[in-house]
Structure formats: structure tokens, C-alpha cells
């Protein structure tokens, strides 16, 4: 009962904030609504017992992707008002497409209910003694043992991507003033201070 209440609450907030993402006039507000939608979806995952996915959603999507969106939206000077100009004229066409998709989904779901689950070999569990430990622990136990080869391979892919991004974009510009701490520390009072005796009524020449 409590679960049902929480589910409907989270689901309602996801729907409302999802609608608000596309309806709000200010793009920054859209991103903030998106973050709210992510948080509530994470709550839905928690309800399903998938706490690892919930954490991933918060860390990756809220922590990285949404903040990146926010940066992009704030840095790019896009006139969103002009992008929305044709909204009303496109509305009927969009509604027709949405209706078609919804109809297809209903037919597909109905057909699946009639036919039943597909035949075929059931997935073979890799480790059998998985009862009683959390999702995170189970994924960790597999990721760093059985799939360590793929995991390290993914690491090499990220390294390649990083090198590639630097090779293709890094430029060393001339005339950049960099801080040289050793030189700063080694500076003597004689180089930095100049004692002058200005006469009354005259300024100092610097």
C-alpha cells in the first residue's frame, strides 16, 4: 500500500516535470525540471530494488549530463523564442504521429499479452550463488573478476578517447603568461622594490 502511494507520487512528479521540460519558456528552467525528473526516476528504480541503477542515474545523469546541458544552454546564445515559433502550426502533425505511436504500442502490448513470452533458451546465469547479496555487490563481483578483461578494455577505450580529444583540439598558443612559482619565490627584494624620493608637489614616475 505504502509502495503504491510512493510509486504514484514519484510517477506523477516524473510526468509533470517531463511535461514542464518541453513547455517551459526558459531553457535553464527546462534543465532544472529535467534534473527533477531524473531524481524521481531514480526513486522509481529504488522502488524496484535496483539501487545500483538509481545511484548511476543520479551520479551520471544529474551529476554530469544535466550539468553539462546547463553549461551548454548558458554558454550558447540561442534564441529559443524563434525555435518555438512554429509550435502551433506543427501541433496537429505532431499529435497525429503521437497518436500513431500510442496506437502501435497498445497493439504490440496486446499482442504480447496474447502470445505470451517468446520461446528460446532461458539466459544462463553466470554465477549461481547470487542470493542474499545486493545488486551493487553482485555487479562488482562480476565486473572485477569474470569480466575484468572487458573492463580493462573499456578503460583503454576511454584512454584512447582522451588522447584523441587532446590531439584534435589542443593548441599551444604563443604569448600566454604562465605562473612560474620558482621564479616568484626566488625573487629578491632588490628586483621588486624601488625607493624614490619624490619632491613635494610632484608625482612619482612608475
Amino acid at each position, binding site marked *: 500500500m505504502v509502495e503504491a502511494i510512493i510509486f504514484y507520487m514519484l510517477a506523477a512528479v516524473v510526468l509533470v516535470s517531463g511535461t514542464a521540460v518541453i513547455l517551459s519558456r526558459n531553457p535553464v528552467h527546462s534543465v532544472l525540471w529535467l534534473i527533477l525528473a531524473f531524481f524521481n526516476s531514480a526513486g522509481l528504480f529504488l522502488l524496484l530494488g535496483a539501487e545500483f541503477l538509481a545511484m548511476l542515474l543520479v551520479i551520471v545523469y544529474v551529476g554530469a549530463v544535466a550539468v553539462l546541458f546547463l553549461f551548454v544552454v548558458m554558454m550558447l546564445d540561442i534564441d529559443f523564442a524563434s525555435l518555438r515559433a512554429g509550435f502551433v502550426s506543427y501541433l496537429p502533425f505532431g499529435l497525429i504521429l503521437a497518436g500513431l505511436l500510442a496506437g502501435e504500442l497498445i497493439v504490440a502490448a496486446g499482442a504480447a499479452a496474447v502470445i505470451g513470452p517468446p520461446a528460446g533458451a532461458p539466459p544462463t546465469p553466470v554465477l549461481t550463488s547470487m542470493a542474499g547479496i545486493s545488486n551493487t555487490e553482485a555487479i562488482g563481483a562480476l565486473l572485477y573478476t569474470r569480466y575484468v578483461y572487458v573492463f580493462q578494455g573499456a578503460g583503454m*577505450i576511454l584512454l584512447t578517447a582522451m*588522447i584523441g580529444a587532446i590531439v584534435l583540439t589542443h593548441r599551444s598558443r604563443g604569448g600566454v603568461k604562465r605562473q612560474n612559482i620558482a621564479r616568484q619565490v626566488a625573487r629578491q627584494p632588490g628586483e621588486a622594490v624601488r625607493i624614490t624620493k619624490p619632491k613635494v608637489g610632484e608625482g612619482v614616475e612608475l
Partner: protein
Amino acid sequence: MQSLTGTLMQPLSESLSIAAPELVLALGAMTLLMIGVFRGTRSFVGLSWGAVVIYVIAGLSLLGDASSAFAFGGLYVADDYSAFLKVLIFVAAAACTVTAIPYLRRARSDKFEYPVIIMLAALGMSMMVSAADFLALYVGLELQSLAAYVLAAFHRNEARSSEAGLKYFVLGALASGILLYGISLVYGFTGTTSFTILAPLMSAEPSIGLIFGLVFIFAGLAFKISAVPFHMWTPDVYQGAPTPVSMFFASAPKAAAMGLLVRVAMEAFGGLADQWHQIIAFAAVASMILGAVGAIGQSSIKRLLAYSSINNIGFALIGLAASTPEGVSAVLFYMAVYLAMTIGSFLVVLSLRDTAGRPIDDIAGLAGLSRTRPGLAAALAIFMFSLAGIPPLLGFFPKFSVFLAAVEAEMYVLAVIGVVTSVVGAYYYLRVVKLAYFDEPTGEILPQESNVNGTVLAVAAIFCSPIGLLLIGPIGRAADQAALAMLSF
């Protein structure tokens, strides 16, 4: 051969010793990267030669016990088949690293990352040919592709190179997506991604979903070997990318992806040969025809070589379409000779520079090469005659062995189309030779600027010349052994 279930309890140290070549390459690439980061661009030449040393070490680590072995819980397999392809990959990668030095210096693109990225690509290719599971396959393929996208755009100040990089990236990402979708379908309908577990499941009547997955996987892999109808990116990318990079694209990744395709087809989907046979046969015929016809109108040498590589992939696919041990062995033999011919042809292109030092890419620039640079013209003639498959040059024999495999598998139509298209293809190869030997020179061509390039070019030319026939025996035997090792699953 050890059993797959036994590998689940395998200690990590044993897995690591089986995967020694990959370990050497990964650590080597990171070491080179660190040296480059601290010493800067001036370490470019030193790092390139250091990379060659690492390839040699990785190659030597392939020696040792010859039996097949699984590692990392059945994700990785080391057998004669993967060893054969790894030798090809390492040799091609080493050649592409050192012969690029003068070109990249002239173009002011001599950044130390070049040998590092080539080595990361080689690591990915080596993972591809050793993959015994779709997960490992995908990771290796992605590593190789990502490195290749960066290499294509390596001349970042040149619009053409950036365009090539972008085009390759977008289409490559699409192909990866298609491949991944196929893998997920196969996983969904069988419950496993391991080739060895998949193989016995294939004998029964396949479900529609499984066949869909198979088609998507083959489409994704066909993109990587640039077989028609997934070839569109090839001419543009080869033309836009820096010439040494085009040479790399046309050589090592082709061999790796071909090896991967053969392993997936024969090992994982061996029981569904009736289903994939028509896909491969169609891709072979279409690649041969389009490669032969498309090259005729080209005026850029690099585009011509791109069509030539499409054409050659078609011939190699005939061997796979035969789906016999002889066919697989013929594919391996074909790829070994193809690599030498392609690297040689691109090296000729690399050494063509006009008096201002600019690289020549127009076919007309070859006119009268025999008078200005007789040695280079002779090498070019050897490669062109060899690519056209004219005996007694080496290029004839792999073509002969794939046709023989097709005839023995009673695929006469495929063999006949192959012979006809190789005659059509001979036209444009011979046109290049005619330009070089019988036309009046239009301009001066500068002499070879690097002894290393000259040496590699000479070795490739000697390999493709009739002297190379002495090597047919050892290579053929190694290819036979490799094919049998892979098929003994």
C-alpha cells in the same frame, strides 16, 4: 584444448600470460605516452622506433606453446588463427608507424601521439582477432575504431582530413550501433554471448529473432571491412586522411576485421551457414563488381586504391563464402599478400612529391615515372601487376586459391564472376602502369627522402615479385594450420 567451464576458475596470472601480446601492447602504449607527454614533440622519431621494438616484443610473445587456450573466463582465445593474424597486424602497424615519419614531419603533424594511437589501434585489433565472446569482440572493435577516427582527422588544420574524420566517425558509430543491436538480439534469443556456447545452439531450427541478429552483426562487420553495400565511406576517408593513415586503414584493420568476420561466421554461426552464406556471397559479388567498375573513372590515386581495396575484399570474401577449411585458409593467405601489395602501393604514393615538395595525388602525376624515377616505377609496376593478379607475380596465387576453394565448394557462379571482375579490374591497374612507362613526363619528381621508406618499399616489392613465390609454401602451411586450429572447436 582446455574446456570452457574450466576457465571460470582460472587464476588471473594464467590468463595474463596467455594474453601476453595484448599486455605488452597496452603497457607499451602507456609507456610511450608517458615518455611523449614529458619529452614533447621532439620525441616523435624516438617513440616511433620504440613502437617498432614493442611490436617485435609483442610478436615474440606469440611464440611458445602452439595449442589453443582460453583466458579470462572464455572471453579471450589464443590459437594459431589469432597468432597468424596478429603477426600480420603487428607487421603492418610497425610499417605504418616508421614510414609515416617523413610525411608527417613535412606536413608539420609530427605529434608524438601518432605512434601511440597506432599502437592502441593495434591493441584493439589484436583483441578483435582473439575475441571468443561478443563482449570482447565489441570492446576490441570499438578500441580500434576510436583510434582510427582520431587518425583520420590527424591533419586537423586541413578541411579534408577533418571531413574524413567526421564522416568516418558518424558512419562508424552507426555501424557499431547496428552491430551492437545484432549482438543484443542474439543474446536475447540464445542467452549467451560466448562463441563456443553459441555454436551448438545453432544446429536447431533458428528463430526469426536470431536470424535478424545475425544479419545485423554481419552488416556491422561488413562496414568494417568496407564490403559493398557498406563501402561508401571508403574512398572519401582514404582520400581525405593523411596518406600514411590511409595506408594503415587499408592494411591492418582490414585484416583484423576480416579475421573477426571469419571467426564469427565459422565459429559462432557455423551451424547457420545456409543463412549467412547468401549474405557473404552477395557482398563478395557486389564488392568485386563495384570495386572494379568504380575505380575506372577515378583521377585520384588514393581513391583508386580505395576502390582496389573494396575489390580485393570481395575476392577474399569468396573464400569465406566457400565456408570450408580450404576457404578459410585461402582468406588468410589472401589477406597476407593483400597487406604487402597495399602497403607497397601506398608507399609509392607516399614517395611521390613534385618539385615544390607537395604530395602528388593525381594519377596524371605518374606520367613518365619510369624516366624520372625508374626504381619507383618498377616497384609500382610490380604492385599493380600483382594486384591485377597476373602470374608469375605473387598476387595471382591468393586469387587462384580463393577461386579454387569456391570451385571445390561447387560455387561455380561465384568463381566465374570473380574471374570476370578481375579482368575488368586489370584495366585500371594496367592503365597506371601504362601512364608510368609509356607517357611523357609532365614534371620532376623528388627522390626518396628516407632510407627506411625505400627499404620497406623494396622489401614489399621483392615479396610481391616472383622471388616471393618461395614464401608461398611457408605462408600457405601457416594459413592451413591457422584455419584448422580455428575450425577444430
